[in-house]
């Protein structure tokens, strides 16, 4: 049985009057322009250190690489040729025909939108495309990091999000292996890099939370004041949307249905399925290709998901062992 703090649905029991409806992101990558304002706003707000060695990462226009202790929003850039676009369109179409729960049926309200009456023939497949997608902590329904944390530093907030309490975290790093998305990391070394003189000036910033686990806080400090998380606030094209979980999932399903109606069958949702290996995520994405293309695991599973089954096996095995031992004594006794 899940404890109160692990289950977003039982947030009210844990947080009492402070509990709110679960908050989520919906990141619509089909309108992301890759400006990275979310990355910068996140670092500015949270005072996170700069990442990397100030060298090109050999990954198109992406030079921060992945989510980690210091980068809590990360924009991926994927360059694709025509063949790959067609494959993506085909795989998306199959998802629909399979009736995958991740892709919702076209909602009845979708037809009367502002684009009602638009040409819905599939667009010509472009020769080339450049995908951009802003990744973030998934704030899973069943969060591996939280499940495995031995100190209780990771907890489910009153907004249904997952957060590290840096003053409790002892830096053991168990959560790092517990996250199926590779999001959370220990901040081992970080600098806000600048030239020597600048570091010595009084504007140089101290690095917070060294040695502890770090990841997106969902801007908890902003949420408690009724503010929007920094990334969503700054996103110029509203590619990053913020709101109540049910509403975000609803918007995501409408958007994917709309894109399908325009022939863009490559569109699909990620994290919107409550039946997936993490019980769905608090960060829902609309992708234009398979998750792996963006560096996302196709079938994420919370590592503790198998615990009950493993316990069962263990019990059976233990019983068998006991029986065998007993039997051996019994057999031996007969000697």
């Amino acid at each position, binding site marked *: 049985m899940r404890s109160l703090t692990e289950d977003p649905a039982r947030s009210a029991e844990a947080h009492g009057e402070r509990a709110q409806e679960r908050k989520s992101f919906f990141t619509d990558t089909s309108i992301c*322009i890759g*400006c990275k304002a979310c990355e910068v706003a996140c670092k500015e707000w949270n005072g996170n250190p700069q990442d*990397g060695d100030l060298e090109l990462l050999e990954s198109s226009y992406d030079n*921060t690489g992945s989510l980690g202790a210091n980068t809590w929003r990360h924009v991926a850039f994927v360059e694709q040729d025509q063949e790959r676009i067609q494959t993506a369109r085909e795989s998306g179409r199959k998802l629909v025909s399979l009736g995958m729960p991740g892709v919702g049926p076209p909602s009845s309200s979708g037809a009367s939108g502002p684009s009602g009456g638009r040409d819905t023939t599939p667009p010509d497949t472009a020769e080339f495309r450049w995908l951009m997608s802003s990744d973030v902590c998934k704030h899973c329904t069943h969060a591996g990091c939280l499940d495995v944390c031995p100190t209780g530093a990771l907890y489910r907030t009153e907004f249904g999000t997952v957060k590290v309490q840096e003053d409790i975290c002892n830096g053991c790093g168990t959560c790092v292996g517990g996250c199926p998305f590779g999001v959370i990391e220990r901040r081992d070394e970080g600098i806000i890099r600048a030239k020597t003189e600048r570091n010595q000036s009084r504007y140089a910033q101290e690095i917070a939370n060294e040695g502890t686990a770090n990841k997106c806080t969902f801007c908890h400090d902003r949420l408690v004041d009724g503010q929007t998380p920094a990334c969503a606030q700054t996103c110029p094209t509203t590619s990053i949307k913020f709101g109540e979980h049910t509403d975000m999932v609803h918007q995501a399903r409408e958007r994917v249905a709309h894109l399908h109606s325009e022939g863009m069958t490559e569109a699909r949702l990620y994290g919107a399925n409550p039946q997936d290996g993490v019980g769905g995520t608090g960060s829902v994405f609309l992708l234009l290709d398979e998750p792996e293309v963006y560096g996302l695991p196709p079938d994420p599973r919370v590592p503790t998901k198998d615990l009950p089954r493993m316990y069962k096996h263990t019990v059976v095995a233990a019983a068998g062992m006991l029986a065998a031992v007993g039997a051996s004594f019994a057999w031996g006794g007969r000697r």
Partner: protein
Amino acid sequence: MAECHPVGFQWVTEAQQRGARVIHIDPRFTRTSAVADKHVALRAGSDIVLLGALINYVLSNDLHFDEYVRHYTNAATIVSEDYQDTEDLNGLFSGYDPQKGTYDATSWSYASRGDEEKVEEPGTEPESDVAEPDEYGAGGPSLRHADVERDDSLQDPRSVFQLLKRHYRRYTPEMVEETCGISAEDFHHLAESITKNSGRERTTAFCYAVGWTQHAQGAQFIRTAAVLQLLLGNMGRPGGGIVALRGHATIQGSTDIPTLFNLLPGYLPMPEAGQHDSLEDFTGAIGSKLQKGFWANADAYTVSLLKAWFGDAAHAGNDYAFEYLPRLTGAHGTYQTVERMLRDELDGYFLVGQNPAVGSANGKMQRMGMSHLKWLVVRDFSLIESATWWKDGPEIESGELRTEDIDTEVFFMPAANHTEKAGSFTQTQRLVQWRHQAVTPPDDAQSELEFFHELGRRIRARVADSSDPRDRPLLDLTWDYPTDEHGEPDPESVLREINGYYVDGPDAGTPLSAFTQMRADGSTAGGCWIYTGIFADGVNQAARRRPGHEQDETAAEWAWAWPANRRILYNRASADPEGRPWSERKKHIWWDQENGRWTGRDVPDFPETLAPGTKSHPDAGGPDALAGDDPFIMQADGKGWLFAPNGLVDGPMPTHYEPPESPISNPLYAQQSNPARITLPRSDNLLAPSAAQHGSEVYPHVFTTYRLTEHHTAGGMSRFLPYLSELQPEMFCEVSPEFAELVGIENYGWATIISPRSAIEARVLVTDRVRALTAGGRRIHQVGLPYHWGTGTDAVVEGDAANDLLGITLDPNVQIQGSKAAQCDVIPGRRPRGQALLDLVENYRKRAGITVDTGNQKLTAPYPEPQTTTSEED
């Protein structure tokens, strides 16, 4: 736009979601292309062929908005018999002077109706004068009168409409394919998209940035789009227009109240030495009292400006202190100024938020020029490269400069940033938005306002006892802005002065509410006539913040737009000649018959009670001369100019010329490059041979420079910040896989790029986003170079500067450098250091046989002497 103006792009995203089709035309595939409905790549510098072909497509298929074109443009106007087109003269217009390399625009003028002579206004220049680009404000030059000959059937061969048809008849889809490298299929997609989306019910907008302007004929690129938009009826209407995306916050503001050498506030020109000796000479040259429209009142704007600046010292007895204004003796643009530095003709230089050591073309000339100065003041947030070139610039490394030999004294003045000071930003829609101060500036950092106010105060104190007449203008300046406890002048007091006020009479001191209240008799003062009304009723209108959801789509109560809080210029054109909206869908302003006035969703850009059917009085001038269907009220004839009878120095209709360095011969004309371009033939500004010339094979590839989202121009506001530097840490070049294989460079390896000016190194990004094109019968490779990096030691990230590769050739109308299409070679590996670098560049020049004349011969075709170029006796 998504790449360089991501915040503004939110509205494009919204338009797309409402069904707009977005087509991105750019040599490179950017973040804009990634989200556009279609990307069309073209060869850098070939835009006029593409736009000209669209004009031809519209005209030859009768797709123009006929009623709009007939009534609102100069299509029906007859042009002088002396005019000869590029079709007649090998790619030149009539009036070219091969010796001077400039045009005499006389033959481009409108034919005059009847024989009777018009009374010439004092100061009106004889039209036979060679047009000087730095003489005109935004209104262009005056016409002496507006009484022109017309053919409303548009059939007269000398009508603008027929001239336009003839001029562009060879701009065909085939020519586009041949010159721009755009397929016929893509061209037709573009042409159909634009024409089907224009007319009564729909409008199309063109958005551009410096990809259009930074060419040796940049102004003509914009003109081509203007002609197309006029033909399609897309000007002065909601959703239409040509949207200039400015490069910095409030660049628009610094053009309105200018930092440009040739303009006074409100696009009044700077007076010219020897030509504008009196106020009357000057204002008459701006706008003749006999021409139509609001420039005819230039005297009121000028006198009010002088009253604002010099107060009581400006009075009728001294021509309102007109003699205090500086006089131009020629072009004093940034590049001419660098030349003067190199000739040791300049002692000092102020750099205010500018980093020419990295951000201006031919970086070496910029840095060497600064080394000739006695003093240099740099005002910026950080120690930018323009403040440190004397110790760590590229010329120190190469040995061309030695720190101990440089006599320039460099002063660094730390600047307050936008959150640390109050003031206004004017954006491209002319919307002036007030900013409030959030925090005080750290340490010694100051706002520009405080810095210049203090500087002025101290200089005035120095000359307080002077009897030298040259110090009078300084001492007579109104310099009495109230300051707060930190010494910061009250920025609203400056805004009040800009707005203007009554000087005397019962309303003395009261802010003006409209520029029409300005008088030429000294009774009003105002620092910038087009901003009048921004402090109407004593209220800072720019600080208004009424949310959009509380207003209609015009959002007239969000901030304030010049002039007169008008959101769409020339919006009389949003209604038909009878004053009815062209369609319900595109309704904006209209004629209210009952009340006898213009009304609607915007401030009408037209005399409020001038009824649609009104005919123009042939002898009237100024606003009174406007007819009911003259929407372009700042033009001397009230019409949109398809053909510019004056005002442009390099031709009345845009014409394609190849960039000064080009891989191909001009497929359209024997004339290769803009014959009126401004060249700087110097040994430190050598050009590569073009096309078929000997040595062109030494620099076989095109390079183009541009920006990335993560950085800001020369990096002063981004490379010094770790959060932005980490996102784009290294200088790189972008090339196609085909090109990488051709020259043997590897993805993420190093390449050296060599031009006749310098050689730089860059990491290599091999990407399908860059494609080779076929144009001029050969395979053209384009190398993309972001220009954000520079050599120094204070930034978080440094790298070689792309601008070091560029030469300086200028657009003759606006003095902007061409920086979007030039020639280079690319070799694998990092560049050599020290003397070896200089040797590499020199060896290339020798191989190509380059001299100072290479690429600087303006005339490349024999110029047939036109029959009549002498000025007519009139």
